[in-house]
């Protein structure tokens, strides 16, 4: 599903370019649930941005769902994100002036899906994440766990190939963390490819594979039989 080969990324700050990713090689299969871990400064966020087609890379090749990701225009990048990727954020990122169903429907809006169809699909995915009774609730009327469920429904609604979750449980208590992880694993069990960026070992332990970044390179990548 995802293949990165010899990915390099530099940031130009001051006179010296900062070499953040130093030749990342990575392959993630379709339907895999992986965790990307690493300490601060390891290049974890940069890798996530590149995987999410939010940032470009300077060298190497990246193939996503069979499509080579090179120097795309901003418009092409946006369309590709909309079609192939779903995002789950640490701080949920729900629009405060839209209700739960409208937030879920947002990616469909950018696909040009009609209002009726958008509402139908949004409600279907809210049912799936267990929020059928919260469709018209505004974000400030929802708990942290419920907000993240809405965000997960939003990530799924456009039928992406890959879901990228950036610290999805970072803002939740341990009980809610388990609920969200259970939901993510259920989604994975339906055949979705999930990449979770986390610094929580408990969360990483629940994935099939942990990829650990160190100094801009993949240090280890090992499968966890207990989670598989």
């Amino acid at each position: 599903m995802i293949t990165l080969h010899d990915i390099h990324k530099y940031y130009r700050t001051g006179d010296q370019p900062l070499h953040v990713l130093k030749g990342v090689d990575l392959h993630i299969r379709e339907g895999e649930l992986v965790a990307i871990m690493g300490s601060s400064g390891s290049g974890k966020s940069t890798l996530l941005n590149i995987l999410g087609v939010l940032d470009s890379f300077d060298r190497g090749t990246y193939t996503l769902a069979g499509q080579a990701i090179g120097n795309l225009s901003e418009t092409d990048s946006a369309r590709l994100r909309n079609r192939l990727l779903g995002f789950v954020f640490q701080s949920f990122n729900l629009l405060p002036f839209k209700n739960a169903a409208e937030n879920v429907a947002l990616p469909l809006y950018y696909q040009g899906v009609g209002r009726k169809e958008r509402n139908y699909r949004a409600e279907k995915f809210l049912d799936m994440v267990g929020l059928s009774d919260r469709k018209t609730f505004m974000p400030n009327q929802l708990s942290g766990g419920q907000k993240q469920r809405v965000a997960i429904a939003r990530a799924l609604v456009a039928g992406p190939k890959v879901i990228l979750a950036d610290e999805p449980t970072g803002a939740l208590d341990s009980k809610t963390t388990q609920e969200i992880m259970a939901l993510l694993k259920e989604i994975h069990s339906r055949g979705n490819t999930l990449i979770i960026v986390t610094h929580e070992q408990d969360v990483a332990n629940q994935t099939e594979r942990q990829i650990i970044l160190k100094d801009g390179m993949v240090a280890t990548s090992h499968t966890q039989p207990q989670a598989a």
Partner: protein
Amino acid sequence: MALVDVDKWREIFSTLGRHKLRTGLTAFGVFWGIFMLTVLLGAGKGFQNGVIDGFPRARNTIFVWSQGATQIPYEGLPTGRFMQFTPEDVEAIRKEIPTVAFVRGQNSVGVWGGSGSYVVRKSKSGTFGVSGGFAGVEDINSMRVIDGRSINALDEQQRRKVALIGQRVRDQLFAPGENVIGQDITISGIAFTVVGVYRSTQDGNQQQEEERLYLPNDTLRKTFNQPGIGSFVILPKEGVQAKATEDEIKALLARRKKVSPDDKGVFGSFNMQEQFEKVGGLLTGINIFSWVVAIGTIFAGAVGVGNIMLIVVKERTREIGLRKALGATPGSIVWMIMQESVFITAMAGYLGLALGTFLIEGIAKLLNASGGGGRFFTNPQVDFSTALVALAVLVVSGVLASLMPAAKAAAVNPIVALQDE
């Protein structure tokens, strides 16, 4: 993306509604600009109507008269000669100047000097100036016939003893409400029938103009024993510059009267076209000035809108980043910001246009109720084309106001959505 997108409009209302005071103050700048534009243009139109009303309907009339003695000896003739025009001169002008469409001689009594004529109606009387008239006199002078008719061609041909009288003459000779048309008056002891009453539309000299009577010119000449012609009233053909015809006529008269072409003070002349074009230039200048002031004000308002939109974009950076992460293209973000900006300017501008039109219409109604307005200000109005142009200015200013904020919004990096708050 559809223009009538319920979600989009709900978002716009929601965004604007969260900062009512800020939105209101921003919109006020544009409102004021359009309000000013409407009022200035409406008032300008009123001024234009007032000034143009003061002109006669024929705006290219040429008047030529004898004004001074010769000062240059010419063809053996001495200096100090005064020119006296004759009916033959009228015919010569008609025949020899091909650009002349209409020419009449005009005589007068007590108009350009001397005392007027004593006019009696039963027990009432007064002394008034008398001018020679002709068919179409009401188009050549700044006047409107308000009762009866003007002098016509038959009056001229048959040298009828008819009179077109000014309304102040009527007021002095007749009782209020009395029927005037067909009544007899005596001018210097000779009976005339009143065929019409006029009012003057001339700026600044209305009272004096209305204390006058017009008789068919040949009737006047006969009545007052004036064998010569006092002056000429000429209308050039359509499309001919009055100044050219005026010069040709003066050259012809100089030849006929044996006056040196260099003797400039002998024949006096005036053409209405020059005056009208001067005033037209002034009116155009006022119009341009109104547009410049108003558009300047609108753009100042638009800059205010642009400023606020920049703040809005700054406030919504994270939201815009999120939208881009979820698939919003730069174009859709630009469109979103533009719609908000155009919405503020269009709404505020529409209100300004409506209130400005309302004010102008109110003034027009008040003026009409009080008798048609002042001397230089009549029937102010905002015409449809002005409203359309104002609307276009609005939309353009709304788009211009949004350009920079929209560009900023489109350049928001979607990575900001991934960053922790």
